[in-house]
């Protein structure tokens, strides 16, 4: 998609960057699914995603969310549990009423340091305090 000049000839240098720069890069990736996906790249990347300080969750990006709205809440829970106490700059959770109704308590507990604010009729946005 993105045209990367010289891709294929370029040898991986990015993995050699210091941890803190990889954390910055992952924070710019943003989308929670795409961020967690990097865990699989190599051993070097295995736990790197945990330090992404910006995370955006969006329920319609999960394939099964319409069939099982609780699925989304589980994903958010799982990510936040893996991050533990790691510092966060911004957390956005975007979901429909359907997902929210499925397990509001769990989600709100997971995002305990976050404040909720309704936005439009369909979604919720949540930022870390």
């Amino acid at each position, binding site marked *: *998609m*993105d045209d*990367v*000049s*010289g*891709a*294929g*000839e*370029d*040898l*991986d*240098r*990015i*993995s*050699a*960057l*210091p941890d*803190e*720069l990889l954390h*910055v*890069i*992952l*924070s*710019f*990736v*943003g*989308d929670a*699914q*795409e961020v*967690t*996906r*990097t*865990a*699989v*790249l*190599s*051993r070097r990347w*295995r736990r790197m995603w945990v330090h992404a300080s910006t995370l955006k969750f969006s329920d319609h990006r*999960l*394939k*099964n969310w319409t069939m099982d709205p609780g699925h989304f809440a589980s*994903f958010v829970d*799982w*990510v936040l549990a893996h991050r533990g106490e790691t510092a966060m700059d911004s957390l956005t959770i975007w979901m429909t009423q359907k997902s929210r109704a499925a397990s509001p308590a769990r989600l709100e507990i997971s995002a305990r340091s976050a404040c909720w604010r309704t936005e439009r009729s369909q979604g919720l946005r949540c930022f870390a305090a």
Partner: protein
Amino acid sequence: MAAPESGDGNNGAARMVTLISSDNTRFEVEAAAASLSQTLQLTILDGGGGGGDGIPLPNVDSATLSKVLEYCIKHAPAAANGGAPNATAVDRAELERFDNEFVNIDQSVLYSLIMAAHNLEIEGLQSLVAKKVADMIKGKSPMEIRRTLGFPDPTPEEQAEMNAHMLEYGWAYE
């Protein structure tokens, strides 16, 4: 575009400073541009870098420094305006065009640039390169990311490990 290469710097108003790359090339540049680096700003405020002295940058080679200064010179006017509240849309569009083109470069250069931006504490440049690398990661499968970033082909052992992790992190691959 203003060339950062040597000059005698006595051309009036703007204060000039000299930066010396790891391979001993001297770059003369306006203090305002060099001050985009938080690290250099302190030295410059202390009166360093002027005259014949020059500020040595042992971690930055001349190719990288020249690129870093190209960025600083372009961004200095907007930075001087405190994020340019009175910049016109045209100015902003021009900076954006410059930025996009600026990072359209090989990965090895991206690597050197983000390291330099990090060491010199040039926030805007660090973010610009980080965003570019993030764009190389976004919207791709792990194998596509590995190819884009130029990872060597996985060994069978590595492949097995990747498969196991994909199962564990099943969420991420939906």
